[in-house]
């Protein structure tokens, strides 16, 4: 039985790692339950993130609000395609891709396949690494709304969608972390060292 945090190997039945003091468990039996719970929460939070306004811009007394997708379209209209692509990727492709990838991994645990373990492992690593980058849009909103406060000329206020989007990102990050990576490899009995 091995420690998750430092890799120290113990006999079965030891409850606390002798090296780093972390709690030990051979396999996290509640892993999949937590993955599904966090992911559902993430999906639920992602809906208002798209329907409610992300930013409210008041220019010379006129207020316009833009949603997540609206922000991307606006950037394309400004012809900043590179930045539009980054925002589109971070706030739409990554969250949707994560919902898909995590569900796929969680479902495939029930169907062992040693051949696929490497590609699943890579998929998991990509999901875990990339998830945090969705927060870009939240930081953009924070910066814009503190920066653009020029009295009557133009002001930008954050919208409620920023909150639900941030929550959605946090929930899916937790979903990815709850997934016990060793479940991917447990199926592979031949090379068990």
């Amino acid at each position: 039985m091995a420690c998750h945090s430092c890799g120290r190997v113990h006999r079965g039945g030891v409850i606390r790692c002798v090296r780093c003091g972390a709690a030990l468990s051979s396999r996290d039996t509640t892993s999949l339950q937590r993955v599904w719970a966090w992911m559902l929460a993430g999906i639920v939070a992602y809906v208002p993130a798209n329907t409610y306004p992300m930013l409210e811009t008041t220019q010379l007394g006129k207020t316009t609000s833009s949603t997540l997708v609206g922000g991307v379209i606006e950037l394309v209209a400004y012809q900043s395609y590179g930045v539009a692509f980054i925002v589109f990727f971070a706030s739409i492709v990554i969250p949707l891709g994560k919902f898909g990838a995590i569900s796929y991994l969680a479902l495939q645990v029930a169907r062992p396949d040693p051949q696929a373990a490497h590609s699943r492992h890579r998929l998991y690593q990509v999901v875990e690494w990339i998830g945090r980058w969705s927060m870009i849009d939240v930081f953009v909103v924070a910066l814009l709304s503190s920066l653009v406060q020029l009295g009557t000329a133009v002001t930008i206020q954050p919208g409620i969608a920023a909150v639900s989007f941030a929550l959605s990102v946090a929930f899916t990050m937790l979903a990815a972390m709850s997934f016990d990576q060793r479940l991917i490899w447990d199926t592979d009995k031949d090379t068990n060292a």
Partner: protein
Amino acid sequence: MEPAVTATFEDRDLAELVACPVCDTLHRIPDVGLGQRARCVRCHTVLMAPRASAMTKIVMLSITATVLMIAAIYFPFLTLETRGLAQRTSVLDAILAFSDGLTLPLSLGVAATIVVLPLVRLGAILYALAPMAIGDAPLRGALGAFRLAEALKPWAMAEIFIVGVAVALVKVAGLAQLTIGPAFWAFTALVLVTVLNDNFMCRLTIWRTLEARRPNR
């Protein structure tokens, strides 16, 4: 883990083994030279990557990062000018942008991810490793501190904030004249230092050193 596997090893031999954190494959801890890497035979996760005088470098970089963070918080970050109106923003203002009404929790979240958690993480790393860099035994609670630093790693989002800044710059570029303040450069340097710092860190080596130098064993 099947009992048949562990039963063949004596307890003291267990300390000579390492389980891959990803797939649980057991390895004998190899002799890895400085600058080399040891990977798991099954899933190719890097198990060890020791560097020369890593402890000293990590501690130095962590101190640098702390100083840069303090500078980044207080100096002006960006200045926006249009029609004679100027708006100066610091990192603190960006955090407080969400501070009214329903978006208040988000303010706390942004504060945590770009300032508080990175600082806590740096503090924890320094607490755990600074005494070891000068050759002393680790302080009480060093193990917990290092575990905390590892757990916080995904939640410290300073580098993402920098990309967010770049996007925000493009969005306001057409609206007004922008000037970049010293805090922007401090923050950028902070991100680079943090990335370097994480590269020097070989977790297995650090855990084993912490264990070997523990005073009460």
